[in-house]
């Protein structure tokens, strides 16, 4: 595993993409096929399942390190990663061995079939034969938590350079539900079998946020629709079956069984890009309703009637079994309209209505209606644009509504983990309520590293009280908090919960007595918290 560890270190220790790609390209040229296949799988999020619980691993690691378990537990949140904590506390390897990545993965799988005593012996023996990075990686594979700081896009670029295969073509070949067990390096990368890939999705085309509407140029070139607030999905009807993929290449078919009926309404050889939405009386239910469906592998009947879903169709990618992504959007969309136009209302499918485009001002007005229509904003697509893969600038833009904002004061701070270990990054904010303060949200993101360093130094000096890892700090620093939605919440003292809260700005200019009040939040709840299912 030394070669793989070398690759991991190389991509982990540099921030330069050219260096990362170079390291991966070299690896894809030199490593054995079985290792290359596993590397593609691991780098694209296809982790082997966890073979062992984290609890016993901690116990074994603490025992091997000769430290009490509580001490291990204290160190873990500071390190911020379980596998890393384990590899750091263990004594150095007794005798290092270099075996291929695929060997260790096989070992891990064998362990899953054994009893606890044999597993423990096997894992302790492995820890004793691996160098520091190899040990970290082995343990991450054991816990099913392997991640690497490389996007799939960069990995595919390196693979393209190493194999001389077109990058877009490779991106498509790597999509879908394959695992290293049912495919070889050769058949995945070099000679894909068309019949084996009936469920394979197309890479999603993603849009950047539009910051400057003037950059659109002539409005006549653009088509617009709502940006719905659900789960982006790709519905595939092929070979008598249907498959539903998420943007993160997760198969969601069983989570939304309603969509099986699409087979009754549309022909095989159809692939649609759309948004899965919880659907009421011809209007979307709030994201809150859909949230109840997410994360459920099987759906109880009650939920199916409470929060039924539909697919809101955006785009047609395949028709009659033919890839039509290269056609202009206007043409694809016309074909989608033709397919979907005459479906009966019981079909779990709607066409995402096109918003007429007349001028930038008129578009801005349409955008301003987004919240009341339960949408996140507008999507703008150039009429002649092909369906590209990945996030690309120029042809598609998302134009989200501005977030809701309140000015609030920081009252609690907690250190982060992982990249943010030992730095105060997780804050709780309060608004005014009469003469007092009411905490109403946490936020973790939105500040620069330099700002986090500054606030960390301040927290250290201005702690009033400590509750375990949480510091109660002097209410002094005011932040503008942005969020996408607000809902009633009986579980929170403030009575509200926010969607996607984050820090927009550190308001050095704002004194404490000018922050927002709980009454302001309640007003927002009345205005935007409409939720028929809550």
């Amino acid at each position, binding site marked *: 595993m030394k070669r793989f560890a070398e690759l991991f270190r190389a991509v*982990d*220790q*540099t*921030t*330069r993409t050219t260096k990362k790609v170079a390291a991966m390209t070299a690896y894809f040229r030199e490593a054995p096929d079985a290792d290359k296949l596993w590397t593609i799988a691991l780098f694209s999020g296809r982790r082997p399942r966890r073979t062992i619980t984290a609890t016993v691993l901690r116990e074994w690691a603490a025992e091997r*390190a000769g*430290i*009490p378990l*509580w*001490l*291990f537990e*204290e*160190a873990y949140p*500071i*390190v*911020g*990663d379980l596998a*890393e*904590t384990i590899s*750091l*506390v263990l004594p150095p390897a007794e005798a290092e061995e270099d075996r291929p990545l695929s060997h260790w993965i096989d070992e891990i799988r064998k362990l899953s079939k054994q009893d606890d005593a044999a597993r423990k012996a096997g894992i302790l023996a492995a820890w004793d034969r691996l160098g520091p990075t190899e040990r970290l990686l082995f343990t991450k594979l054991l816990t099913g938590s392997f991640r690497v*700081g490389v996007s799939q896009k960069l990995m595919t670029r390196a693979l393209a350079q190493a194999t001389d295969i077109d990058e877009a073509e490779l991106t498509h070949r790597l999509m879908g539900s394959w695992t290293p067990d049912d495919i070889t390096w050769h058949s995945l990368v070099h000679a894909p079998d068309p019949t084996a890939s009936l469920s394979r999705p197309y890479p999603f085309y993603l849009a950047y946020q539009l910051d400057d509407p003037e950059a659109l140029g002539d409005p006549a070139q653009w088509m617009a629709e709502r940006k719905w607030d659900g789960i982006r999905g790709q519905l595939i009807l092929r070979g008598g079956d249907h498959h539903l993929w998420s943007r993160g290449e997760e198969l969601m078919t069983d989570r939304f069984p309603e969509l099986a009926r699409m087979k009754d309404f549309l022909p095989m050889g159809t692939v649609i890009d759309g948004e899965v939405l919880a659907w009421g009386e011809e209007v979307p239910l709030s994201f809150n309703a859909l949230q109840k469906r997410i994360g459920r592998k099987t759906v109880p009947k009650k939920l199916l009637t409470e929060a039924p879903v539909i697919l809101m169709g955006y785009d047609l990618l395949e028709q009659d079994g033919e890839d039509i992504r290269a056609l202009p959007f206007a043409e694809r969309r016309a074909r989608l309209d033709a397919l979907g136009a005459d479906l009966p209302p019981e079909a779990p499918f709607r066409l995402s209505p096109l918003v007429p485009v007349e001028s930038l001002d008129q578009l801005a007005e349409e955008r301003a209606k987004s919240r009341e229509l339960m949408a996140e904003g507008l999507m703008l697509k150039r009429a002649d644009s092909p369906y590209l893969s990945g996030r690309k600038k120029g042809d598609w833009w998302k134009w989200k509504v501005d977030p809701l904002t309140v000015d609030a004061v920081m009252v609690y701070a907690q250190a982060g*983990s*992982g*990249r*943010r*270990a*030992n*730095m105060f990054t997780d804050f709780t904010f309060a608004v005014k309520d009469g003469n007092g303060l009411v905490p109403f949200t946490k936020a973790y993101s939105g500040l620069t*590293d*330099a700002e*986090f*360093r500054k606030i*960390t*130094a301040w927290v250290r000096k201005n702690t009033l009280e400590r509750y375990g890892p949480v510091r109660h700090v002097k209410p002094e620093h005011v932040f503008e908090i942005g969020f996408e939605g607000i809902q009633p919440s009986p579980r929170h003292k403030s009575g509200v919960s926010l969607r996607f809260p984050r820090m927009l700005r550190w308001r050095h200019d704002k004194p404490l007595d000018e922050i927002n009040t709980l009454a302001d939040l309640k007003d927002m709840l009345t205005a935007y918290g409409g939720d028929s299912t809550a």
Partner: protein
Amino acid sequence: MADLLTFTDRGIYCEAGDFYIDPWRPVDRALVTHGHADHAHEGMARYLATDIAAPVMRHRLGEISLDTIRYGETRRIGDVTVSFHPAGHVPGSAQIRVERKGEVWVASGDYKTIDDGLSTPFEPVHCDAFITESTFGLPVFKWTPQAELAHDLNAWWAANAAEGRFSLIGAYALGKAQRILTLADTSIGPILTHGAVENTNEVLRAQGIALPDTIRVTPDLDLKAHAGALVVATPSGLGGPWARRFNLAGNPASTAFASGWMALRGVRRRRAADRGFIMSDHADWPGLNAAIRETGARKVFVTHGYTSIFRRWLESEGFEAHVVSTEYAGENVDADDEGEAA
């Protein structure tokens, strides 16, 4: 009888000798373990420090009334006898031993147990009560051996030099910067220094500490002529506009950070340097434990770092352990100002 040393909001106080150790507020008499800014503060009427630590303290604190003492030399102050013993942290750093009628307390300031080749190596001092730091008081911190560190550092520098790029490394101006200088293989190329580092180098050289030749970075230095050099900067220099000059056209500098925190991948990624060298002037977990055991003390006071966790560990090991609140900062990877926390 009252404790020999007590912990006040000004610093560690010895009533029997009426002096403070490493006070952070102005007092009449300050015994100072070493010259880092969180231990040697301005405003004391009288200072006492080792002869080796004195030049840097004078350099940093200006005109002060400073008396010096050699390692091992004893001095009577009030009802107590004090002596200073090597702490191995930076050149001249000391543990301060205080004795009254056979009872011995030791305030260790900051220390490390490995020999860095620059500071007088740490010597365990037998005592009844030991005041310790715990900056790296967790079992995940175990330092890379010095030889391996030298190898990794020079391999990184040599690879960059071969590509004609600068190797830019951030380290505290007093201690770690000079440690990097002594580890560097000068056959690879020239060594450039940030002004704050070079100022400290000059002080140390003047007192007879051997350091390799370095070139101070000034606005009129011909950088192209020194392409491939090792550049030793302060942490804030590394992150700021000062460092940009080393990004030659199409050939940006490789950056590295030297700190004990680099043992943690998360922190390494946060600093976003190309390399993180695990190098600290504080004791690692095995070092802290060995040092405390060797004192023979039953009573241990933990001043800074992972204090509550470390206290609990010491108690489980049979010590009577306490956490005391101080303003010592240890090694802080997020302090942009070198002097703020070293």
